[in-house]
């Protein structure tokens, strides 16, 4: 085979075909799943993996970023476990949700199946899907007071769900007996199983068309090519070690901050992520499994180098040092329910480390807390049990390219915020306001995006749970940009407003009619020195209410020439010459 001819055409076409197979697996599950969380927020992933190394060959483009590299690390773990038990056999399918092996949390159930062609292991297929319930102390999860994994649900170690093509029905009965939604869970399991037929058929068609040897060669070649591509981007990053640290407010049990530390070394065309110095695993749920920590680093890289395909080659030029038993390599029986908070923080420290090296490509950290406010109870109109989930929106960090986005979804997800009108139909509550949170984006040459704020009042008794972070440690800016406003949560019960003891973590607090919640999400960090921001932009931000007058004057060095009013709104005109002078004196003071 002449390598270049194979490369240009067959590679392009085969890569397209393999990605198409993975995409079609995604879409088939999204359509067939029972759980709305899969069918409506795409909380799933599918991939094709290398038969010997377990590296990703292609992953579907509809699934969520959080599963990006996590799938490969899971498959590699299963490959080792299966080998120890005699290796993969035709007709086998493994199942697990053990976070210490497959990352994320118990709700994400993973299936792994070998695909044999002519008696030889040709590829590995895997998928993951979020089940609506996995047993445990609270319906659907979110139990921030858990201290061990068993309070969060049933733990499925790597098991053969199918052996030689035969389903272990007893095992299925064991699952369905331990979850609150047995019919739905059985349906999701069937749907996830059926999707493998799509993957197998797609691969078989390719083999028939191009020959097994060509397809196998392409697997290797695609991984090598992606590695080369990733290395070419890393080689563009100046060599050096870039350090940063960040803090979690607390673990929801004890109000003490926990450190995450990263020393990122760029050496030629490789990266070394060293998390030495990160706090030991938490007693509470603010913990992350090693595989998802690694995956989160790749999510950050993919947000910067979006054009690199999701392929094991892209993961090769990296090395990790993650202390065992730390909150980013949690060990049994540490709980993991708050893992999304940790995912967000890992992404942020990677951005901040890389920002020191390639500021023109790296955004400042975003709002950085993926927490949720949940409301549950019996609806007085229907008598039926309801659970309302409001995932946190917030501002994005500013970048060299643009100001930050207002009210973004968390970088590892694509899920939307609920419609207010729809929420009022479904839950006994009334929104008092839902607004852009003024002055919440970090100041900078480019300003961080604003977060948002809302308040609602209950019309009937309910129970609320809140999981969040970044109350005491707001999202930082980069390159001299300011930090964003911190997270803010207040409860109102019996006419009194109060702050949760753990800042933004709260489990099963009772609310009555007339009680309520106010929440305000952080904005994103600023990018660059605010004293260099275009004054016309500062004036526009003031008049749009994105920044307040004190911020304009203090952080941006603006001098107001004229203030007028239109009804209750103030309108400002800046004095450009005086503003430039004030900026000059602030700079001098800053350096003095």
């Amino acid at each position, binding site marked *: 085979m002449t390598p270049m*001819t194979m490369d240009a055409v067959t*590679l392009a076409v085969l890569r397209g075909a393999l990605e198409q197979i993975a995409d*079609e697996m995604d879409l088939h599950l999204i359509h067939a799943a*029972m759980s709305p969380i899969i*069918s409506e927020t795409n909380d799933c992933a599918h991939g094709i993996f290398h038969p010997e190394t377990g590296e990703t060959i292609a992953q579907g483009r509809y699934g969520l970023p959080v599963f990006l590299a996590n799938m490969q690390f899971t498959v590699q773990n299963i490959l080792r476990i299966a080998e120890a038990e005699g290796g993969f056999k035709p007709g086998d399918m493994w199942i697990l949700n053990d976070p210490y092996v497959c990352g994320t949390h118990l709700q994400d159930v993973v299936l792994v199946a070998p695909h044999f062609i002519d008696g030889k292991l040709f590829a590995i297929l895997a998928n993951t899907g979020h089940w609506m319930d996995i047993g445990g102390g609270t319906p659907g999860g979110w139990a921030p007071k858990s201290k061990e994994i068993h309070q969060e649900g049933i733990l499925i170690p790597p098991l053969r769900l199918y052996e030689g093509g035969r389903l272990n029905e007893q095992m299925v009965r064991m699952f369905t007996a331990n979850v609150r939604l047995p019919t739905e869970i059985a349906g999701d399991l069937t749907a996830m199983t059926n999707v493998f037929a799509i993957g197998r058929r797609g691969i078989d068609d390719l083999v028939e068309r191009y020959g097994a040897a060509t397809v196998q060669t392409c697997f290797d070649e695609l991984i090598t090519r992606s590695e080369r591509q990733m290395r*070419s981007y890393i080689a563009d990053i100046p060599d050096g070690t870039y350090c940063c640290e960040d803090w979690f407010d607390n673990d929801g049990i004890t109000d003490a901050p926990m450190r995450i530390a990263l020393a990122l070394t760029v050496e030629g065309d490789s990266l070394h992520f060293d998390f030495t110095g990160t706090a030991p695993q938490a007693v509470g749920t603010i913990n992350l499994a090693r595989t998802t920590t690694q995956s989160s680093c790749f999510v950050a890289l993919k947000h910067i180098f979006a054009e690199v395909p999701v392929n094991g080659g892209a993961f090769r030029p990296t090395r990790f040092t993650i202390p065992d038993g730390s909150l980013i390599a949690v060990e049994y029986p540490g709980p993991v329910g708050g893992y999304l908070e940790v995912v967000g923080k890992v992404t942020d420290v990677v951005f901040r480390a890389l920002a020191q090296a390639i500021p023109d490509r790296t955004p400042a950290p975003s709002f950085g807390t993926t927490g949720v406010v949940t409301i549950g109870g019996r609806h007085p109109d229907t008598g039926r049990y309801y659970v309302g989930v409001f995932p946190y929106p917030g501002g*994005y960090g500013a970048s060299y390219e643009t100001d930050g986005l207002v009210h973004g979804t968390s970088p590892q997800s694509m899920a939307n915020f609920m419609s207010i009108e729809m929420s009022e139909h479904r839950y006994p509550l009334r929104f008092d306001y*839902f607004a852009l949170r003024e002055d919440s984006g970090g100041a900078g040459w480019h300003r961080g995006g604003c977060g948002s704020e809302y308040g609602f009042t209950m019309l009937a008794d309910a129970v609320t749970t809140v999981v969040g972070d970044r109350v005491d440690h707001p999202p930082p800016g980069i390159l001299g940009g300011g930090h964003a406003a911190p997270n803010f949560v207040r409860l109102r019960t019996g006419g009194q407003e109060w702050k949760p003891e753990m800042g933004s973590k709260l489990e099963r607090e009772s609310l009555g009619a007339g009680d309520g919640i106010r929440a305000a999400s952080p904005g994103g960090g600023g990018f660059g020195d605010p004293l260099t921001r275009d004054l016309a932009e500062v004036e526009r931000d003031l008049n749009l209410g994105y920044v307040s007058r004190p911020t304009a004057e203090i952080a941006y060095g603006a001098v107001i020439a004229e203030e007028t009013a239109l009804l209750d709104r103030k309108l400002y005109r800046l004095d450009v010459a005086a503003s430039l002078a004030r900026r000059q004196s602030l700079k001098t003071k800053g350096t003095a």
Partner: protein
Amino acid sequence: MGGIVGIDVGGTFTDLFYSVDGVSAHTTLKVPSTPGDPSRGLVDALTTAKIDPPGLDLIVHGTTIATNAVIERKGARCALITTRGFRDILELGRRDRPHMYGLTGVQKPLIPRDLRWEVDERLDHHGAVVRPLDEDGLRAVAQALRGEQVEAVVIAFLHSYANSAHEERAAVIVREVEASWEVVTSSGVIREYYEFERTSTAAVQGYLQPLIARYARNLRDRLSGWGFDRQTLIMQSNGGVIPLPQLAERAAYIVRSGPAAGVIAAARLAAEAGFDKVITGDMGGTSYDVAVVVDGAPIIAETTNLDFRVPLRLPMIDVNTIGAGGGSIAGLDRAGILHVGPRSAGAVPGPACYGQGGTEPTVTDANVVLGRINANDPIGGKGGMALDVDAARRAVDTLAQAIGLGIEDTAEAILSVVNQNMAGRTRLLSIDSGHDPRDFALVIFGGAGPLHGAALIREVGIHTMLVPPAPGVLCAMGCVIADVRYDLSRTVERRPEDLGAETIAVILDEQRRQGEAKLHTSEARVRDVAVSHVADMAYQGQIHPLRVTIERGWSVARIVAAFHEAYRQENGNTLGDIPTTIVSLKTIVLGVRDLVRRALEIPPPCAVSAPASVRPVYFGGWVETPIHRRDALMPGMTFDGPAIVEQSDTTTVIEPGMRARVDAYGNLLVEVAK
């Protein structure tokens, strides 16, 4: 009976389709568009076609003017008035970002924050008044807005779909303050919940209304100046038409109407030809638009994103677009793997073969290098303009050297990659709608479509490709054959058992009455009125409802059963005993136009006439290939690939191993030979 003209005004070309019987083409042509005043290009097309105004009954017209105004942010300066506490709904959206990967970018709200105002008022989700409308406060806001040079005021209150009284009263007050404003209420545009989507839809309407009102006046005057005073209808994105006098109030309905017209025409031609499941593919210079039609009905999207955080929640034909067209540029990524698009050479400089300074290889250049496009008689070229084959070869050669292949093999590789992109999207779209793509026929059109259709059916596994008689002006043809259409909707969000069959019937009757009244006042000439009903339904707790066709008078049990069947069709299963919800009730009132419905006999097979010429075309090697003129192909003629069919508006490639025949309607049907 006089003639009918369909005119589709696109970004580059204005297409005309003139018919005497209302479906077969008498004259088709393309003239350059005149973006400054699109109505000028429209009259240019009419005069170029030498149409005699007195002999013309009807002009039906599609336009991109609304789409462009939104994308380029060239609409009116508008103010928005909302419920107190909620003015930012339009800007916040529902927590998203522009792309899955990459965190940069911002949105540009159609109405900026300083033009968004709040007044005291609040309804609950049943439409009951929680706080009355503060009329004095509203007057003060309206007075303040008089100094803000706005052309339109949009009023969007929470839960107005359940009770429009506050919005309607507010509109009266705002008009009292300033009569020259266009005033839009959210419940007047769409009576459905989801405050962001409804407010955005109303903002799009307000943003477009002044502009479209001016355009409608302009067009009427210009047509009148040309000598035409009879009826003009305008194409909507739902696949139906409305009369010109109603255009301004329906401004938001004409966004992306051109692609919708193409789907309508493709669906109609395919139905006549005997295909009930159709994928329509429209490939032009920069993009490939693909849609799915089942049993003659195009799949409808309830919400379409016009831009990041600019959703339009109106029923629109679900046309999916990817960046694959004749101008798509081929290159290598850092992994050394070939990519085609989405970057496009556009109209300027265009493909290298246009000789306007383009040097990067495009899909069109690849087609020229392979001899598929006739360089001496290209489409859209006005007599005499020839393509620069050497420039195309030079452009492809730079890529060929980088990957170590010959020029022709590189050109074929470019086509393989772009065809795979289009085939992939085509498959995903049909899977997404719960269908197997292999059960469909492909209607391929657009200037570049028939060059690629043969490869697409091979890739997707589709049996038959249908190339219409005038594939380059199919959108203009769609205008001619579309019915008058009004969509009405109302969110109820209740369990069907709680709502009851009687209430459902009352709501549907009211919608029917409103639609028929609109049809009546439109004075559009229609043969018949067809009314159909839809319930948007979901299992309780689900976010995305399904469109379920229902009939007035059905029992609750019958409606629920129809939902279960629709759910099974789309998802392959049902969720058993989980209760269902009727989210919205909808009515479609069609004014069926008096058009010829053809039903022709299958023509006996006959031999194809001698090809006009023979030239070498590259199919894995140079093959002397017969070149047929489309107008020499008569019903019943059958021939084998490889072959090329040329006509003024496109070129059709029939690959080796495929067989083509002309059906009774002049469609070219191409199949993979068994």
